[in-house]
Structure formats: structure tokens, C-alpha cells
């Protein structure tokens, strides 16, 4: 009986991982395909780096990528600052007026359909423009503001759960020794929650770098981000240079996550070794 069940689990796992990775693998393979018909493998001229070369000389894609990078980096900084403040308020100030609404506002952007968030932000920008003349038109600024609004929610989650594990005794000790609250925060709390802030930054960057729906609502004619460009190309069908672009992006992220994972495994091992060293005295 036990055999039977593990067979079910094993086959589901195999199928699941093949399902998750086969499409990415195919995309990578076909990015080296010489044929313009993406689904037909041209064995005479493949593999080729032609699409990568074309990508490198494509001004449109390069400038869109540059804009996306700028927005994503700026967004990540803003989201980390606002998200950390919000997480601190929720975790340390357990009682203040409007806390329930505040908690709801910080988590809602994660679960709301992007179409609604995008539409509502655009309507806000239009109304603001009518009333105050700002923002004049929609551009990188409106995109960045919108991205900060939804990605700070993720920062709040990451930072808040880290804050909850911080030993308050450390903060108290600093305060008892006469440090002012802001000094306690920068000298004690901030270093302790730094890993969470770093992962919040990375997460916000990726969310912004990847966003298409909200961006489409709040962007203007002069500001086309990389996902917008990819989306408009992809709607017309598969194109080999997008395969090449996807390969670069997927490879970049995979290497990053892999390094992060290796670091985690390494840290675990070290911790285990240290724990064992404490428990088992050397003979």
C-alpha cells in the first residue's frame, strides 16, 4: 500500500516538474534556432546566436529595457522605505486609530485584480491632472508611483514577519542605556531586519520589472517598458528574438536564485556544524 501511494506522489512530482520546466527549456532551445518559423527546427543552420545579435542591435528593445530597469530600481527603493515604515507601524504600534483599515490597505494590493488597480490609478492621475495640473500626462513617474503602491505590500509582509522575530530585549537594552528611538532603530533594529529589507528590494524590483497590466493603464505614449514591448510583439505571435530575450532573463534570474539557494544551504550547514560543536564536546 505504501508503495502505491509513493508511486502516485512520485509520478505527480515528475509530471509537475516537467510541466514547470519543459516550456522554459523549449523556449531556450528554440532561441538558438535559425529558422524564423519558430516551431520548425532548421538543423542546417542551427544552433545560431543570430537572434541574440539582433537583440543587441535592437534600439527599441534596449531603450525599453533601460526604462524598465530605471523604474524597477527606483520603485524598489521607494517600496522598501514605505513598506518598512508600514511594517514597523503594524508590528510595533499595536494600537492606533485606523489600524484595521491600514492593515487592509497594505495587503489588498497583493490580491486585487491588476485590471482594477490599474484602472483606478489611471482615473486618479486623470483627476489629479484636472484639479492640480499634476501629473502632466502619463510617463515613467506615474508608472513608478503605481508600482510602489502595489509592491510595498510585499515588502510589508516580508519585513513584518522578520520584525516579529527580532528579540525586543536588544531594543530595550539600547533604550535603557539612553538611546533615542530613531537611534535604536538605525543601530539595532535595521541591521537585524536587513536581510528582509534586501529580499523585499529584490522582490519589488522583480514585480515592477515584470508588470504589464498596471503599467499599460498608467503609461503614456513616450514611455514603453520592456513587458509592454514584449506583450505587443507576442500578441502578433511567436518571434525568435523574444525567445532569445526570454532566455537571457530566465538565465539571469535562475543564476541569482540558485546562488541565493546555495547560500541558504551553506548557512544551514554552518549552523548545524556550530550547533553540533556546542552539543558534542571534542574528545
Amino acid at each position: 500500500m505504501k508503495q502505491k501511494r509513493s508511486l502516485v506522489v512520485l509520478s505527480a512530482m515528475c509530471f509537475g516538474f516537467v510541466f514547470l520546466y519543459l516550456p522554459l527549456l523549449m523556449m531556450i532551445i528554440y532561441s538558438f534556432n535559425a529558422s524564423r518559423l519558430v516551431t520548425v527546427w532548421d538543423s542546417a543552420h542551427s544552433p545560431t546566436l543570430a537572434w541574440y545579435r539582433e537583440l543587441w542591435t535592437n534600439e527599441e528593445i534596449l531603450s525599453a529595457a533601460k526604462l524598465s530597469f530605471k523604474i524597477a530600481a527606483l520603485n524598489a527603493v521607494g517600496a522598501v522605505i514605505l513598506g518598512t515604515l508600514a511594517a514597523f507601524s503594524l508590528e510595533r504600534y499595536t494600537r492606533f486609530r485606523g489600524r484595521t483599515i491600514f492593515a487592509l490597505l497594505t495587503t489588498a494590493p497583493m490580491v486585487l485584480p491588476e485590471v482594477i488597480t490599474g484602472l483606478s490609478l489611471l482615473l486618479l492621475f486623470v483627476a489629479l491632472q484636472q484639479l492640480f495640473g499634476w501629473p502632466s500626462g502619463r510617463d515613467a513617474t506615474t508608472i513608478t508611483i503605481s508600482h510602489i503602491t502595489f509592491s510595498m505590500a510585499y515588502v510589508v509582509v516580508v519585513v513584518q514577519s522578520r520584525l516579529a522575530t527580532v528579540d525586543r530585549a536588544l531594543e530595550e537594552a539600547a533604550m535603557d542605556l539612553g538611546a533615542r528611538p530613531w537611534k535604536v532603530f538605525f543601530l539595532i533594529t535595521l541591521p537585524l531586519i536587513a536581510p528582509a529589507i534586501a529580499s523585499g528590494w529584490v522582490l519589488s524590483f522583480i514585480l515592477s520589472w515584470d508588470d504589464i497590466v498596471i503599467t499599460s493603464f498608467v503609461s503614456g505614449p513616450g514611455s514603453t517598458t520592456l513587458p509592454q514591448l514584449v506583450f505587443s510583439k507576442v500578441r502578433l505571435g511567436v518571434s525568435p528574438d523574444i525567445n532569445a530575450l526570454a532566455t537571457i532573463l530566465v538565465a539571469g534570474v535562475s543564476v541569482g536564485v540558485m546562488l541565493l539557494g546555495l547560500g541558504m544551504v551553506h548557512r544551514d550547514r554552518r549552523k548545524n556544524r556550530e550547533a553540533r560543536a556546542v552539543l558534542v564536546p571534542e574528545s
Partner: protein
Amino acid sequence: MVVMAWLSCRGSDAMSVIGLRLRQVLVRQSPMRQGVGRKLVIGIPYLWLALFFLVPFLIVLKISFSNVQLSMPPVEPILVFAANQVVQLRIHLANFSFIFGDSLYVAAFSNSIKVAGISTLLALLLGYPMAYGIARVRGTLRNILFLLVVLPFFTSFLLRVYAWIGLLGRNGPLNALLMQIGVIHEPIQLLQTDFAVYIGMVYSYLPFMILPLYAAIEKQDLTLLEAAADLGCRPVRAFFSVTLPLTKEGIFAGCLLVFIPAVGEYVIPALLGGPDTLMIGRVVWDEFFANRDWPVASALSIILLALLSGLVLLLQRVQAAEKSAS
């Protein structure tokens, strides 16, 4: 939220909390200074969210009660300053009655729920054994498998959906494979069908399903299964009467995490679905960009929001319960 699932549990130290309270009572801080700092810390993110998240919804609500007119923005104001200094409030419910009267919109809503529901079920059927398998493996392999589940979440959503366009195409690998093994004799239409949308949904949201399930299964006390076995319970029955009920919070959270975004999804039906794949996210998009009917797009958003807000509150309650349990 995904992140929440894989963050380790917290161990709050009761003593330090008591210590803090004591300190607050014993040591008097200058109240002014602390008050200002505290107000700033709470106030800045609060103001941001109020301005860029709460107010926009009020505007959507306002515009959903207004009429289309040829101007920029293409809506009639609902507050009108009439001649004799009287302010008129013109609220039109026409958009809502129009939506509920038109079978297209009603069909879009019911179809979105159907597609999201089926996708959630498929993701659960595939995700549960995967999460189970990962949670029961030990050591480094578990870390690797876990990373493999999380990794797609960090790669571009758009490109992952795009990858299926090539795979499902008429001359694509999947059709070729099916012909090779003799299931079909000529290429069949896979792309631009509901089938393709289900695949895209499950593919994109599978990590959201697996992570809370993994967290729930991993927490389970394995001695319970041993106890069941000692009492003569067969593994399959033990699974259904011990493991499955113990992980029901995880199942619930996973299903909500997949269902909620799937209902309002735009990109997947736009790229993989056919012209007849009606989904509400797509309808809102088209009303806004193609028809430039802002009031109807707003009214549709309000209805969708009303549908989802109950589920969102439910999700928050489930996650709060999970948090306090751990």
C-alpha cells in the same frame, strides 16, 4: 503572501513583551518627541496608501455612476453646478442595470468564475502530491526541490505564458508529440481554446498553491501517522483521515491564492484564449481601451471588487488563523 508561506514561524518571547510593558510604565519618555516620530512612521505610508490606493477606488465608484460623454476624460461630471448656485448630484444607475441586463457581461462573470474554479481544482490536484512529496523528502534534496518550485515565480510571468504559445501551436512540439504516439492524425487546435487558458492558469499559479500546502504538510506531526499505523490503519486511509484534515487550512489558503487572481486575470486569456474566451478582466480592459467607455469599465470593476472582497477577507482570516496556530 507567497513569501509569508515560506518564512519560518516566529517565536515571540513572552518575557520580553512583559519587560517592554514594564519599561513603558517605569521609564517616562518625553511624550512629545516619541509622538512626532510615531506619527511620521505611521503617517507617511498611511498617507501614500490613502492617496494612491483608497482615493482611486472612490473615484472608480464615482465614475461608475456617471455617463459617457465625448471629451477628455470621457465622462460626465456627477456634481453639476447649475445656474442658480444649486449643486446637482447626478447619479446614474444606468451602467449597472445595463451590465446586468446584457447577457455578454453576465456570461463574462460566470465564465471567469468557471475558468478560475476549474484551474484552482487542477492546480490542487497537481500541487498537493507535489507539496506532499517535497515535504516528505529530507535534507538538501528538499531545499533543491523547494527552490525549483519557487524559481518560476521569480521569472517573468509574461514570458512564462508566452512559452506556451510556441508549445501549443499548430506546428508546435505538443502537436508533434501527439501525432508521433498516434493519438491524433493531424494537428489539432490547442492554442486559443479554453484548454490553453487552463494550462496557462495552472502553470502560472501552481507555486501559489504548492507553498501554503507545503507549509501545512511540513508542520504535520509524523507520529500521528505512526499511531494510525499502529492501530492498524492503512496508509491510504491514514492519509485521508489524518493528513488531509490536518492540512485543510493549507488547502483553503492555496485555493484562495489561486482562485482570486485567476478570476480577474487578463494576460493569460488574452494570449492563450480564443476570441470567445470571455473573462471579466479582458472585458474591463476592452471596455476601457477599445470602447473608451470609462463608466461601464468602472461599474464592472466595482462589481468584480464586490465579488472578490468577501474572498479576500476570508483569505485574511485563514492566514491570521494560521499565524496564531504556529
